C-alpha cells in the first residue's frame, strides 16, 4: 500500500508504551460512587432525565442529548441518584460543572440489552439513531458525537473511504493497542457495521509499525472476517501520525482543507475504540458505559490498561494498579504531549479519557526557563500542519490575535512538536492555546456588541417612531381645531345655547 508523508513531526519521540502493554486488560471494580458531568462531549451539555433519589440500572439513560451536537449519558451500574450538583470535572480550567452522582448498590443490575446482530436489515438512518442513542462519542480524546460524523442522509456527500484510527502516536498511551490485541474480531465486526452504514467502498485500519504483534492480531481478524473491503495498514511511527488529518494524509495523500472536515474529501475517520463501542451498541445492544483507559507513568506501581466504568473516580483506578509510588508528582489526563494536569484524584473519568498518566518529576514536561526566540525555524519544519509557529508566537504574545488567526492559528492541533524542538524552550503550544481561547472570547464579545448595537438601534428607531406618532397626533388635533370650529361647531354651540335660553325649563327639568 502506497503511503504519503506529512510535514515535520517527531520520528524519534520516546514511546514509553512497554510499561503498560505487557499486562492484559483488567476490569476495574464498580466504585461506590459514579459521577457523570453533563458535558463530556463536544457540543451542548446533556439534560438530566433523573432526579435525586431515583433508582437507575446499568445502561439506563440518565441524561439526554440537547440539540443536534450533543450526546446522551447512561448509568454504568445500578444504584440511587444521590446528587445533581456541581462537581470537579476533568478539564484544564479546574472548574466544577453540573454532574449527576450515583451511589451504587453493588448489585450491578442491568437493563436487558437488545442487540441487532442482523444489522444489515437496518437502514442507515436507524443505525445512526441507534449509535446516537447509545451515547457514543469519539473515544480518541476529542469526544465529538459519532452519530453526526456518520449521518450521511441529511447531507449531500459521498464517503468512499472509512479510516479506522489505531495509530496511537502519543507516548505512554496504549489502550487502543491492547484493545486491538485482545478484541480485534469485535472491532472488525464494528467496521462491518460502519461500512454498511456509510456505503463506503473501502475501510483501512491503520496502526503504527512499532507494534507488529498487534498488526498480526488485526490481520488474523481481517482474514477471518473475509470482507475484501477491509484492509489493515502499517504506517511509520512518527508523532503525531495518529492525528486525524495527519493519518488521512499518510494513507491517502489528501489534505483536509483548512477549517474543513474529512467528509469534505469523502473520508470518515474513526478511532478504533469508538468502533468497538459501535459494535457493542449495535450488535450487543449495550450503550457506552465503559471504556479502556491506560493508567501508566512512574508514579503508579503497576501500569496497565483497565476497562473502566465511565464515571469512576481516578483514585479507584490507582488502587487497581496497586497505588502510587513515591515518585508520583503529577496527575495528567491524556498523554505527556497533549494532556492536561488534574487537581486531584476524586475527578471522574469521562468518555474522552484515554489515559491517566501519573508522572514523576522528570516525566512531566520540564519547565525549563524560556529564552528569547532566535528565529531558527526548527518549529516550522517540525509542524505537521505546515504552520509558522514562530510567526504565530509573535502575534499571540503581542495580542495581535486577528493577525494570528489570518495565518491559520485555528488550524494548530496543539500536538506540541514545536515545543519539543524549540532550542529556546519557548512554551509555544501554551501560547497558542492561550491565543485560541482568547480569540474565542473576542469573537464572543464581538457577537455581544453586535447584538447590543442592533437592540440599541431598534430602540432608537422605536422611540423616534413614537415621537413622530405623537407629533403627528397633536398636529392633527390642532389642525382639526383650526378648521372645524370656524363654522359648524361654533354655530351648533351657539344654537344650542340659544335653545337653552329660550326654554330654560327644559334645561332645569
Amino acid at each position: 500500500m502506497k503511503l504519503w508523508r506529512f510535514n515535520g513531526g517527531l520520528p524519534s519521540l520516546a514511546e514509553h508504551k512497554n510499561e503498560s502493554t505487557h499486562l492484559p486488560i483488567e476490569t476495574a471494580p464498580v466504585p461506590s460512587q459514579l459521577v457523570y458531568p453533563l458535558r463530556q462531549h463536544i457540543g451542548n451539555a446533556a439534560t438530566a432525565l433523573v432526579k435525586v433519589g431515583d433508582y437507575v440500572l446499568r445502561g439506563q439513560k440518565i441524561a439526554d442529548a440537547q440539540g443536534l451536537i450533543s450526546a446522551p449519558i447512561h448509568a454504568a451500574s445500578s444504584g440511587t441518584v444521590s446528587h445533581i450538583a456541581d462537581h470537579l470535572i476533568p478539564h484544564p480550567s479546574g472548574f466544577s460543572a453540573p454532574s449527576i452522582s450515583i451511589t451504587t448498590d453493588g448489585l450491578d443490575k442491568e437493563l436487558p440489552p437488545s442487540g441487532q446482530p442482523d444489522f444489515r436489515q437496518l437502514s442507515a438512518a436507524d443505525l445512526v439513531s441507534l449509535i446516537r442513542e447509545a451515547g457514543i462519542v469519539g473515544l480518541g480524546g476529542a469526544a465529538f458525537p459519532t452519530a453526526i460524523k456518520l449521518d450521511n442522509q441529511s447531507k449531500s456527500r459521498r464517503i468512499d473511504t472509512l479510516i479506522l484510527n489505531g495509530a496511537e502516536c502519543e507516548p505512554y498511551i496504549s489502550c487502543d493497542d491492547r484493545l486491538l490485541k485482545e478484541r480485534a474480531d469485535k472491532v472488525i465486526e464494528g467496521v462491518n457495521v460502519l461500512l454498511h452504514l456509510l456505503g463506503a467502498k473501502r475501510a483501512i485500519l491503520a496502526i503504527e509499525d512499532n507494534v507488529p504483534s498487534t498488526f498480526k492480531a488485526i490481520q488474523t481478524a481481517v482474514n477471518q472476517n473475509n470482507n475484501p473491503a477491509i484492509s489493515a495498514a502499517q504506517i511509520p511511527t512518527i508523532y503525531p501520525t495518529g492525528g486525524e488529518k495527519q493519518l488521512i494524509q499518510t494513507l491517502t495523500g489528501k489534505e483536509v482543507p483548512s477549517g474543513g472536515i474529512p467528509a469534505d474529501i469523502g473520508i470518515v475517520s474513526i478511532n478504533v475504540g469508538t468502533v468497538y463501542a459501535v459494535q457493542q451498541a449495535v450488535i450487543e445492544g449495550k450503550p457506552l458505559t465503559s471504556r479502556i483507559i491506560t493508567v501508566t507513568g512512574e508514579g503508579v506501581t503497576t501500569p496497565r490498561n483497565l476497562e473502566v466504568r465511565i464515571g469512576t473516580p481516578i483514585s479507584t483506578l490507582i488502587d487497581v494498579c496497586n497505588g502510587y509510588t513515591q515518585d508520583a508528582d503529577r496527575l495528567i489526563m491524556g498523554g505527556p504531549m497533549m494532556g492536561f494536569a488534574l487537581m486531584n484524584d476524586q475527578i471522574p473519568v469521562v468518555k474522552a479519557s484515554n489515559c491517566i498518566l501519573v508522572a514523576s518529576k522528570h516525566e512531566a514536561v520540564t519547565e525549563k526557563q524560556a529564552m528569547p526566540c532566535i528565529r531558527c525555524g526548527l518549529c516550522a519544519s517540525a509542524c505537521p500542519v505546515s504552520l509558522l509557529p514562530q510567526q504565530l508566537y509573535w502575534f499571540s504574545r503581542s495580542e495581535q490575535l486577528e493577525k494570528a488567526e489570518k495565518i491559520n492559528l485555528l488550524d494548530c492541533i496543539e500536538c506540541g512538536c514545536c515545543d519539543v524542538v524549540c532550542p529556546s524552550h519557548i512554551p509555544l503550544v501554551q501560547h497558542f492555546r492561550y491565543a485560541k481561547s482568547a480569540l474565542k472570547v473576542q469573537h464572543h464579545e464581538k457577537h455581544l456588541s453586535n447584538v447590543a448595537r442592533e437592540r440599541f438601534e431598534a430602540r432608537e428607531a422605536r422611540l423616534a417612531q413614537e415621537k413622530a406618532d405623537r407629533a403627528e397626533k397633536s398636529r392633527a388635533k390642532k389642525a382639526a381645531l383650526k378648521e372645524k370650529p370656524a363654522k359648524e361647531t361654533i354655530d351648533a354651540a351657539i344654537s344650542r345655547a340659544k335653545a337653552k335660553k329660550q326654554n330654560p325649563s327644559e334645561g332645569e327639568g
Partner: protein
Amino acid sequence: MSFLILIVLFAGLGIVLGYAAIRFKVEGDPIVDQIDKLLPQTQCGQCSFPGCRPYAQAIANGEADINQCPPGGEAGIAALADLLGVEAKPLNADNGEETPKLVAVIDENTCIGCKLCIQACPVDAILGAPKQMHTVIAAECTGCELCLPPCPVECITMEPVVKTLALWTWEKPENAAQKETS
C-alpha cells in the same frame, strides 16, 4: 476642430462621471460605521454622548477625542488610533475607569414595578410591566449602569459576569514574556 473634439470629450467624461456619482453613491458615512464597529456598544454614555453611535459620529466630526470610552479601555483606544492614524493616548479619567464587565441584577423582593429602569435601559434588556416584578435579561445586558440612578428603591446591583467553561481561557505564559521584555 480640436476645440470641438475637446468639448465632446469633456461632455462625454462629464456624463460618465455624473452617472458614476449616482450609480456608485456611498450610503451613509463609512468612517462613522468603522468607528462604531470598534466601540463596545455598551451604550453607557460615559463618553458624554448618548450612545456609541453618537460618539462615533462625534469622533468622525472631530468633536470628541478617542480616549473617552472606559468600557472599550486601552485596547479600544489602540484600535481607534490604528483606524484613524493618530497617536494612542491614555483613557481620559473624567470619563471613568476601565472595569471588568458587569451585569445588572434586580432584587426581585424589593422591586416595586415602577418601570423607570425599563425606560432607562438603552438596549431593552429589562423586562417587566407596571406594578409587576422586573427582571434583567442577563444575556442582553451591556452593564452600562444606566438603570441604577432612576431606581427609587435601589434594588439593582451590578454583579461580575460569571466565567463559563465555554469562555474560559488558558493562562498566558507570562514568564517568557516578562523575561524577554526585561
